[in-house]
């Protein structure tokens, strides 16, 4: 049956667009309260040191200083996102006995002005006993390595083993095997809005309100409850507009814990805003890792086995790093049928700021390795890169034993569409040009419940008022990805009304039903389902009433569309939505109509209820003299189920490709014994306007039965294939093979020379 939607699938401008283009949108960054104090952290200059003493007496004397807190003022215990495994809840508000990375906060001052707070931290005297540090995961696991956390032997924070089929037998059947080793360097998040929070403690009720630049008000509420030893319900977290998150704002960070503690201590509101350097040196980033990858194929290109070993550079704490570790073993298998697979990985603690879930987490590094290796194998076997992918991709219903099941799956039609389009788009390549490919897939939210929530994964409440206007309440988080727009579109479509009829009340833990927040592309499917269910309950009431008023029997179908409720087969017989609502409220003892909805995935395996997927091609030109790579164009064919908002989805794809190009080419975090060498926007290079290629995006629509209106993940998936597609383009142009990302000219020249030497040797 062809589905006709009024709103879903139509390019729709951002519902927050007017606020965000006029300066009216308030980010936490823009907020202040009367009588507010300013907080500032004193941070460790050492990567690893014992704290012998902290003397705050001089700082306290400074006029305008209202309170100073150190590790011993923190009432609560440790916290973390892995609440199901308490030993992995290793974060602390302020360093207590020792510091574990350069930039770790050891004290925080609240003062009447920012200047005074900054002067005050200079007056705090900390006596450290420096300890030897450990900065590389391969060093960290050695027996004589210093321990970052005393109770974690060999600095091993988490281990993962994934296996299906029989890998050894698989390799025995292979006609061709190859092994490659890679180092994937970390990537900074660099959201334009830095971490910042505003906390206000009410002395009378002993309740706390925190506004914060967060991706998940719920996680922040839980983190604060653990850190402050308070009841969740006594903490209200409000997420205003957020200036980007990309995975870096899931953890509860010292901007909010210290602001809260200082507000509780002073009885005044406290605001803490990290500066850009603090943002770089003390907040989370994408995991760096060493990857060893082995693949076995038949002569015809069929994959028979893959084995992968990973060791990640976790940094000082856990964050979502343990999840990234697991998913790094999962998404590299997508979207292929790998009959025999084994993955062994561990995450190490090191004396650096810690690594977590960043855009495309669990996919971006290992997909880079796997897709690069696949092209090398294809070349050796004399098979075209698209052909080898066609040989191996999943079909609908594919299951990776014990791990995941893929229902809607449009990867094959995506590749076929790509084959056709690419011939028209880039009929030939010039010398030193190449086209590279990478397939991709990503989750529509995670099934794993490390946070240990007893609540449904997403909730929504819809209230319809006497004039037909709707109040939609949900804790789902728009952090720039456009979910507020998607929420309103879904609610309006379900009720058959206009988007202008709906007022959205998002992301406030005191007034909205729990949603786990914006990570892993979960909001569209999970929160979309909750909203659709809540709106659907009300629609059902309206439809029932309309049917009764029409005097039709139960078999007649009615639809809610274009602000009317009418008989599907005889559209002239029906009522205005507004009239029916008025009647329904009168029949409801005068109460507004309320619908509640929730969603939690069930029977969908371990990873995700659904997967978006597709294929990317990048055309690039390589300057063999200077080693410069120029991406000339990007072509993507993706399957995201039923697109909700094609305009928003395209925006997300553009952004993912931009960040993926940065991962491939220039985003680098050089570190010297725990010291990040480029903690500024001048020195941390992201891809600039002039270097950004044009992107053509094509769609293969499928219908995902688990998602609202058939929708699933759209766009985050496209970060992971960007780096391998570009590296494969360089490989196609020059034969250069890379064993890491960050393809700076020097590295490119070296790889080209190595490829030329290899070729000469063969002759």
């Amino acid at each position, binding site marked *: 049956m062809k589905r006709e939607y009024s709103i879903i699938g139509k390019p729709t*401008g*951002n519902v*927050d*667009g*007017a*606020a*965000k*283009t*006029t*300066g*009216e*949108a*308030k*980010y936490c*960054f*823009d907020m202040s309260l009367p009588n507010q104090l300013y907080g500032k952290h004193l941070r460790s200059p050492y990567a690893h040191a014992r704290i012998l003493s902290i003397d705050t007496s001089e700082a306290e004397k400074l006029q305008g200083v209202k309170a100073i807190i150190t590790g011993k003022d923190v009432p609560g215990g440790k916290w973390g996102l892995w609440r199901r495994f308490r030993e992995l809840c290793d974060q602390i508000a302020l360093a207590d006995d020792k510091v574990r990375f350069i930039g770790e906060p050891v004290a925080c001052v609240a003062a009447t002005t920012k200047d005074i707070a900054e002067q005050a931290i200079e007056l705090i005297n900390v006596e450290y006993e420096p300890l030897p540090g450990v900065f590389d995961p391969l060093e960290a696991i050695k027996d004589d390595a210093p321990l970052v956390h005393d109770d974690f032997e060999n600095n091993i924070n988490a281990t993962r083993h994934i296996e299906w089929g029989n890998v050894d037998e698989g390799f025995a059947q292979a006609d061709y095997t190859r092994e490659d080793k890679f180092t994937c360097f970390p990537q900074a998040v*660099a*959201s*334009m*809005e*830095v971490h910042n929070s505003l906390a206000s403690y009410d002395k009378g009720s002993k309740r706390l309100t925190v506004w914060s630049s967060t991706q998940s008000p719920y996680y922040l509420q839980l983190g604060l409850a653990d850190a402050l030893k308070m009841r969740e319900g006594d903490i209200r977290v409000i997420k205003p*507009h*957020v*200036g*980007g998150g*990309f995975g870096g704002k899931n953890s509860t960070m010292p901007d909010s814990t210290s602001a809260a503690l200082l507000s509780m201590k002073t009885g005044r509101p406290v605001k803490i805003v990290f*500066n*850009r*350097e603090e943002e770089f040196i003390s907040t989370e980033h994408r995991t760096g890792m060493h990857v060893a990858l082995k693949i076995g194929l038949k002569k015809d290109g069929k994959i028979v086995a893959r084995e992968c070993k990973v060791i990640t550079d976790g940094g000082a704490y856990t964050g979502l790093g343990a999840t990234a570790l697991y998913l790094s073993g999962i998404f590299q298998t997508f979207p292929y049928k790998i009959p025999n697979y084994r993955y062994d990985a561990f995450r190490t603690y090191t004396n650096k700021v810690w690594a977590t879930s960043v855009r495309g987490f669990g996919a971006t590094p290992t997909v880079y390795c796997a897709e690069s290796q696949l092209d090398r194998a294809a070349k050796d076997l004399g098979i075209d890169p698209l052909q080898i992918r066609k040989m191996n991709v999943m079909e609908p219903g594919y299951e990776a034993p014990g791990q995941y099941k893929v229902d809607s799956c449009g990867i094959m039609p995506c590749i076929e569409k790509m084959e056709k389009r690419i011939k028209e788009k880039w009929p030939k390549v010039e010398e030193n040009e190449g086209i590279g490919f990478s397939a991709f897939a990503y989750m529509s939210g995670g099934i794993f419940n490390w946070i240990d929530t007893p609540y449904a994964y997403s909730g929504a409440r819809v209230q319809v008022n006497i004039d037909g206007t709707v109040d939609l309440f949900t804790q789902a988080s728009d*952090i*720039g*990805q*456009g979910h507020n727009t998607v929420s309103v579109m879904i609610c309006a479509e379900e009720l058959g009304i206009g988007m202008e009829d709906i007022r959205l009340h998002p992301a406030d833990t005191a007034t909205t039903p729990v949603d786990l927040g914006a990570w892993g592309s979960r909001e569209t499917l999970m929160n979309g389902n909750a909203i659709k269910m809540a709106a659907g309950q009300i629609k059902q009431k309206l439809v029932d009433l309309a049917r009764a008023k029409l005097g039709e029997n139960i078999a007649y179908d009615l639809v809610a569309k274009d602000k009317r409720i009418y008989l599907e087969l005889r559209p002239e017989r029906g009522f205005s939505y507004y009239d029916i609502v008025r009647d329904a409220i009168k029949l409801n003892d005068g109460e507004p109509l309320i619908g509640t909805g929730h969603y939690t995935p069930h029977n969908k395996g371990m990873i995700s209820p659904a997967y978006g997927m597709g294929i990317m091609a990048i055309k690039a030109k390589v300057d063999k003299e200077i080693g410069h790579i120029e991406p000339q164009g990007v072509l993507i064919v993706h399957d995201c189920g039923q697109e909700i908002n094609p*305009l*928003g989805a*395209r*925006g*997300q794809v*553009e*952004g*993912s*490709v*931009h*960040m993926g190009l940065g991962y491939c080419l220039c985003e680098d975090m050089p570190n010297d014994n725990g010291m990040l060498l480029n903690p*500024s*926007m*001048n020195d941390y290079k*992201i891809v*600039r*306007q*002039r270097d*950004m290629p*044009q*992107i053509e995006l094509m769609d293969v629509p499928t219908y995902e039965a688990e998602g609202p209106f058939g929708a699933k993940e759209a766009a985050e998936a496209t970060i992971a294939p960007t780096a391998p597609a570009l590296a494969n383009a360089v490989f196609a142009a020059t034969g250069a093979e890379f064993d890491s990302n960050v393809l700076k000219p020097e590295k490119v020249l070296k790889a080209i020379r190595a490829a030329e030497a290899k070729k000469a040797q063969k002759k």
Partner: protein
Amino acid sequence: MKQILQFTVNGEPRELLIDPKKFLVEVLREDLGLTGTHWACDTGACCCCTVIMDGKAVKSCSILAMQANGREVTTIEGLADGPNLHPIQQAFIDNWALQCGFCSSGQIMAAKALLDENPSPTREDIQLQMDGHLCRCTGFNMIQEAILDAAERLKGQK
């Protein structure tokens, strides 16, 4: 010692007693409550803080407020005509040229200065002039499309 700053902001004359060490962005945000102008770096590297001063796009984090003395400053709050959005604002919305929106004020003000000077820019002109504007969300292409679209809208208005 505080000093008196007299300037015009969004068409209104303003007189303030300020600390002369303050940057323009601080006075706009903290003294005038115009928080639509953001800053995102401490090193003059992102252009998020762009406002228009005497017709030119300037980084408000990199000039002292006193340098605006006697001048005319327009911020993002001064662009719309009452309840009606400026065509550049509307083009940004219609082309999904903003996501988190944190950099958008700076982008829009720079686009305004650019279009005032060059009503028919090419994509290359935009790339060249706006190259310093960092954005972590959009990948820039849709911003460029919005500016091209805004140029058409502005021409249509005349």
